[in-house]
């Protein structure tokens, strides 16, 4: 006898009694995520999903490290979206260009789910690859729980709180406390070769980066540290280094031989940024509302 379906239905009913929920919440209880979106891996390793905006099908990059959602000029024109000026008190710059306008989007269709209205800053066409019309940044993503399932190549958009239900308790995974900044960027505590570090999770950055200052503090890097090599230089001064890190641990979920570049001349916050090159080796869910990061090996389902 299959008892799981009635139990799910009962759970949904209890949920309805306890608090008023939108139709989308109920459908999630019954049928999984609000939207299940196959992703495309772009040449730089970042991922985008197909979304519908005023009847147009467009590819949008998912960027948990990017503060604002955006659309390119040509795509805003092609879709005939209404525009608003960026307020005088705001200074927004992207790809070296001052952003002056927003596009107002009534709703964004993700799979069968209509996400609520959003503002997208309008950027020059040079700001994003040709096949990408824009990006969904933290301002948009942080309204949901967002699951990246790398091995199935799917991004699931859940109602807040649903990350907790992705894996049964018996499945090996980790739940880490997570900070969310006022801009929606997320950080977690990780251990890099056993040393604790605060890390920004950034699906919009191809590489993972550690600042040299942090490298010195954490590992005592000097010019003679064995294994520390220059990856790129300018006028004889290295601005990018590599080091053979052994492990990056999210508590019990451990990434072996993580590829992390070391920046010598760029101020960054926080000291460690974990980009798409490492994130695509994991199955994770960002619980913005619960401030929890759920993570497991890429093939854990």
């Amino acid at each position, binding site marked *: 006898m299959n008892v799981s379906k009635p139990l799910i239905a009962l759970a949904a009913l209890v949920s309805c009694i306890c608090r008023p929920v939108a139709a989308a919440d109920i459908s999630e209880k019954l049928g999984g995520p609000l939207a299940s979106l*196959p*992703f*495309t*891996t*772009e*040449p*730089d*390793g970042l991922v985008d999903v197909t979304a519908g905006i005023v009847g147009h099908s467009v590819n949008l990059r998912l*960027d948990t*490290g*990017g*503060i*604002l959602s*955006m659309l390119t000029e*040509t795509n805003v*024109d*092609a879709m005939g979206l209404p525009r608003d000026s960026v307020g005088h008190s705001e200074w*927004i*710059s*992207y*790809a*070296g*260009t001052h952003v002056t306008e927003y596009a107002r989007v009534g709703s964004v269709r993700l799979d069968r789910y209509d996400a609520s209205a959003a503002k997208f800053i309008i950027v020059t*066409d040079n*700001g994003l*690859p*040709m*096949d990408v019309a824009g990006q969904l*940044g933290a301002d948009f993503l942080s309204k949901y729980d967002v699951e990246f399932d790398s091995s199935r*190549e799917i991004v699931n958009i859940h109602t807040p709180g649903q990350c907790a239900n992705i894996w049964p308790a018996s499945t090996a995974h980790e739940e880490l406390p997570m900070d969310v900044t006022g801009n929606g*960027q997320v950080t977690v505590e990780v251990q890099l070769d056993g040393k604790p570090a605060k890390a920004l999770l*950034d699906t*919009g*950055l*191809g*590489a993972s*980066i550690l600042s040299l200052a942090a490298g010195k503090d954490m590992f005592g890097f000097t010019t003679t540290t064995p294994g520390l090599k220059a*990856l*790129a230089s*300018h006028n004889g001064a290295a*601005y*990018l280094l590599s080091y053979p890190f052994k492990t990056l641990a999210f508590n019990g979920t451990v990434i072996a031989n993580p*590829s992390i570049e070391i*920046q010598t*001349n*760029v*101020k*960054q*916050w926080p000291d460690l940024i974990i980009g798409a*090159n490492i994130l*695509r*080796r994991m199955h994770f869910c960002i619980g913005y509302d619960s401030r929890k990061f759920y993570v497991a090996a890429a*093939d854990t389902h």
Partner: protein
Amino acid sequence: MARFLSAAMLAMLLLSSARASSVDDFNQGIEAHNRGDNETAISVFSRALASGDLTKNQKRAALLDRGFAYKTKKRYVDAIADFTSVLAIDPSRIDATLERMQSYLGNEQDSLAASDCDTLIKMRPGFAAFYEECGIISWQDGNFPRAVSYFDTGVGLGLKPSIFGLLWWEIARMRAGMPQQAKFALLAKKLNLDGWPSPIFDLYLGKSTPDTVMAAAEKSDRPSSVPGFLHFQDYSPAPIARTTSQDLRRCQAAFFVGEWQLLNGNIAQALPLLNRTETYCKSWLPAKKEVARLAQK
């Protein structure tokens, strides 16, 4: 039965391990691509693709990146094969079409490049840069009236034309014997240019001299902006924008002043300028084709 199950489990484990290895190669290939290491990209993507274990999505990205690497190494035939494979998987890819077009140009298959360029226009009919690209291909081919039709459309899109699109429009119209000086002046005014490349516009508007343009190209303004991200920090590490923009400016000056000399019948002054582009923007096709055309005269 138990033996059969063990064998099946072993086979599954081996398959899973092989797949993991291919995914590792794929990930390494992406990283090599991102840091511009073409040799490694070609090597690890070739291994990953040969395994047959990549998903369709990974295969498309691997072929694209290996194609970029081949193209950078001027292995145009290999690049064209990879971009064609990408388009077989997903015919809507703009990047694969654009890269294949450029590879065709590098391989001197101009008619195939022109065909891809027309496809790009169909993909993005409102994107002026593609009309300019197709106009330049026609111009390189010596088909100036056809070039004019592309530049006309490109210049007419948007609130104002692109800066270099308008310069190309002007030289194509003059070469085709269809000058529209008054319209050129009007459109140039719309650009409201301040700084480079306004000296080139002044030359074509009859307000300046070739020497003034060449001298202006040597002046060093503030460096061009480097790409940034909407994060707290700018990850672009290489402080090379200044050098690049300076050489690019010299290249633009040499080319457009060279073309101006040619339009005024001064082949002896034009040729050394067009040849000089080789120093600043090596193997730039429009200049290369123009020099080849002059050599045939």
